């Protein structure tokens, strides 16, 4: 059964990419709805299967690593598969209403969307370093294609910049993989970890890991390499922005985190961990500040992504050289942060898209009066903002709480400042948007009212992000599941 589910999981997005390529936008929309249904069901079933039976390795083509490619299907991976299914389903649904079917190039949205989804699943499940590289490229090119889709000059500039950054990042990662292969003779992450922990290969060669982390950090837009993100995420169509911010940047981070957790203990060092953490902290502060300064609504949200991504990199210092309990706490915190940010940011971008559609302008100060006539999209935006601020009971708060605990327990109190100041700064930019929308300067409703389905989608996502804090415990318990049997 599980094998069939895996086949379905791998097959569906790729197959739907092909199917939607052959039809036009309207038919593609219908086909996509069906595909979303299938994929969500498969993801749910797989998640349930792993939650009840534990994780396993899946050998593609029947060849075991190191000869073949293995997929690591564990609790964390299926959690992210499920997250992807939810967020991508929401974005796909939103896009099917939001995008104008009259524009001929919008038909290409669907195949790119499905390829992106496929690439994300590759990354969540990947256990082979080179396979992850291909997955990353799949994601990057699809994302660039989506940003550029039918765009005018500014969108193309953003897309090219994004492409260049992504290519450089992938190349750095690949170079690291080349060195790892040279050193270990295998591409399987599990093999490399095993070789390191049983002492077959002496640790100490940090450079490959640094290279890979650099490349992945560049793709994740870690400060100060974040320059490409705001233009790309700000200018893309809102459903695309939502996909990019919610999921795509997480993919490269996820690989970096897995590498760090498996190899960091042997190949990393205190200074490296702290350096990455400091960059993350600076990203939180600087990104929030820039978000506060933006005049365009979507740029606010995009810079907020830079800041929120910064939190993720606290994983590195908080898991290096600490006890297993603290490390677990930090990992759980970061996982929650990834999930809640994915939900909240997708909600925020989709809501921002609706707001822009309604007021006919991308400017923050054009929102005056929206609170009175369009409470729903604003409400979703606000709820998502609450999660970003890390206020209870959202998932963002649960994440912050765990990270606070981990910082305190590991004695790295300096991260407390980042966590608390980050929350306040994000409140600053979120409330700036609220404030603009509460200005009551008109008695007439001259706004365009988007279709109800557009308004419902961000609300659902925002509520999920809100509720995540309440069900954090069960979610985390699936993530920490051990493998079926002892190992592979």
């Amino acid at each position: 059964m599980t094998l069939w589910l895996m086949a379905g999981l791998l097959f569906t997005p790729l197959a739907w990419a092909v199917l939607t390529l052959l039809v036009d936008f309207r038919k593609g929309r219908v086909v996509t709805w069906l595909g979303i249904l299938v994929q969500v069901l498969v993801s749910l079933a797989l998640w349930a299967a792993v939650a009840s039976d534990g994780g396993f390795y899946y050998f593609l083509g029947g060849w075991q690593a190191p000869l073949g490619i293995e997929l690591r299907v564990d609790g964390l991976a299926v959690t992210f598969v499920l997250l992807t299914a939810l967020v991508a389903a929401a974005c796909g649904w939103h896009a099917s209403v939001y995008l104008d079917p009259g524009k001929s190039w919008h038909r290409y949205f669907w195949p790119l969307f499905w390829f992106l989804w496929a690439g994300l699943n590759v990354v969540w499940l990947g256990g082979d370093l080179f396979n992850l590289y291909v997955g990353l490229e799949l994601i990057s090119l699809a994302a660039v294609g989506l940003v550029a889709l039918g765009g005018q000059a500014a969108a193309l500039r953003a897309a090219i910049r994004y492409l260049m950054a992504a290519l450089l990042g992938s190349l750095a990662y690949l170079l690291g993989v080349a060195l790892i292969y040279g050193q270990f003779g295998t591409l399987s992450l599990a093999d490399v970890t095993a070789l390191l922990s049983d002492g077959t290969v002496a640790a100490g060669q940090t450079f490959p890991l640094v290279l890979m982390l650099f490349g992945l950090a560049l793709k994740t837009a870690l400060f100060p390499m974040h320059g490409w993100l705001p233009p790309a995420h700000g200018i893309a169509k809102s459903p695309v922005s939502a996909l990019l911010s919610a999921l795509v940047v997480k993919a490269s981070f996820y690989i970096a985190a897995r590498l760090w957790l498996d190899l960091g203990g042997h190949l990393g060092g205190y200074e490296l961990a702290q350096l990455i953490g400091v960059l993350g902290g600076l990203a939180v502060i600087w990104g929030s500040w820039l978000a506060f300064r933006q005049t365009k609504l979507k740029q606010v949200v995009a810079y907020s992504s830079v800041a929120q991504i910064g939190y993720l990199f606290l994983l590195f210092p908080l898991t290096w050289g600490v006890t297993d309990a603290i490390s677990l706490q930090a990992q759980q915190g970061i996982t929650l942060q990834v999930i809640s940010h994915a939900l909240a940011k997708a909600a925020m971008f989709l809501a921002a898209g609706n707001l822009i559609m309604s007021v006919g302008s991308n400017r923050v100060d054009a929102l005056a009066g929206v609170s009175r006539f369009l409470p729903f999209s604003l409400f979703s935006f606000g709820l998502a903002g609450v999660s970003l601020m890390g206020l209870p009971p959202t998932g963002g708060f649960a994440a912050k709480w765990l990270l606070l605990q981990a910082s305190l327990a590991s004695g790295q109190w300096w991260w407390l400042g980042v966590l608390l100041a980050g929350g306040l700064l994000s409140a600053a930019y979120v409330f700036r948007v609220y404030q603009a929308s509460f200005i009551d300067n008109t008695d007439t409703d001259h706004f365009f009212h988007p279709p109800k389905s557009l308004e419902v989608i961000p609300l659902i996502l925002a509520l999920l992000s809100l509720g995540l804090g309440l069900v954090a415990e069960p979610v985390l318990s699936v993530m920490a599941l051990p493998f079926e049997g002892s190992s592979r």
Partner: protein
Amino acid sequence: MSLSVLMPVFALMTSLLASVVLFALPEKGYRLRTTINLVAAVVKIALVAVMIWGIARGREYEAAFTMLPGVEFVLRADALSMLFAGLSALLWLLTTIYAVGYLEDSPNRSRFFGFFSLCVASTMGIALAGNLFTFFLFYEMLTLSTYPLVVHRGTRKSLRAGRNYIIYTLTGGAVLLLAIAWLHGLVGDLRFQEGGHFAGVDPSLQVPLTIIFVLLMTGLGVKAALVPLHGWLPQAMVAPAPVSALLHAVAVVKAGAFGIIRVVFEVYGLEAAEAMGLLAGLALVAAFTIIYGSTRALYQIDLKRRLAFSTISQVSYIVLGLCLFGPLGVMGGLVHLVHQGIMKITLFFCAGNYAETLGVHRIDELDGAGKRMPGTSVAFTLGAFGMIGAPPLAGFITKWTMGAGALEVGMDWVVAVLVVSSLLNAAYFLPILHRLWFAEQQQAWPHERRWGRLETSPWLLWPPLVTAVLLVLAGILANVPFSPLSWAELIVLREVAL
């Protein structure tokens, strides 16, 4: 699921559900909205009353589940929570009635009542929170749900006030979070329990615990408007009158004060806090706030601003009460939580009536208002005398109990503070009463509206009258069972364990 688990959940849910429904309601559904509001408020009072009855007979209500690894979400009703829950449930009903009248034809009513209910849900959550974590959760929810109420009018001034409010409260919240997280890291999940956790605690924890205490008080002090963290309160006056009433009497400042009570009594423990020398500092801050607030109130021309500074002063009575470290003093502080709420809400209702009916905002415009609006003015007068501490009103009970408590533990200077404060109270309230009743009307009312034979809309008139009666009753019937004072006594006997 037994009823003892479900009761606190229901109490929370009534207003939460009401809020969700109200948000979804179209702007025009006036009747339906009012019905939902009132039904929810009445149901909540009933639920709270049942729980009060149960607790008096020794029942326990608790619901808990694990939210995060090592962290529980706990709702628990004990005598102390009922003090606050009862107050907010009762006053919510009155404030809702008042707000329905007050906002009769203003825009954004769906939004207003939605957040209004959310705000009360948060307050109920604060009252029922069973540990610091849960408390914080609702504390922040309260911050968020009050912001839209403060900026409700959407004017530049109200937006500025809202911004200040949010800066103060969120920063306070961050400090509070730091303190709670630290405490949690130090000693694990802390349920509120009688007598606190830190009696005879390891001396090595002394220093961090002291720092955490200061952080906790800072975080809670923002909402309780302890000087110098009070800056947001006078500005928030631009909000509509029912909101001010809510902020001052029921929800926000009370949440801060209530939090301080919880921390001192049931986290640190009164004795432990005293032993660590934490209460003396708090008492000084509270005393200073009392004098400072009253003094500033003297100089305010705007009626609501004067009331605001009066709130700053009065809420610190509660804090000062617990620092007295004796059964009577503590009782005085606890009972003032209720008394101040009833008195202050009366005053704010009245101030709102003057503004809404006559268009009067400044004190020097009030000349002769007593003749035009006798009902409102009688209520205002009772409230003012209560604040001053004239017998046999509610305020007198507070001050008397506290004074006795101070003498009992030998903190004579507190009596001096009480006396000075009462004099100041008189100094800023009596001139208003003089203008109301004895001055001749100087000019036409700035913006008068008429409601037939009544002095103002019945929706606006009844709530202050009811609260005025309540504050008289609370004074006269102080020794009857289930009066605020008796309940405070129950709390002291059961939970403070002195």
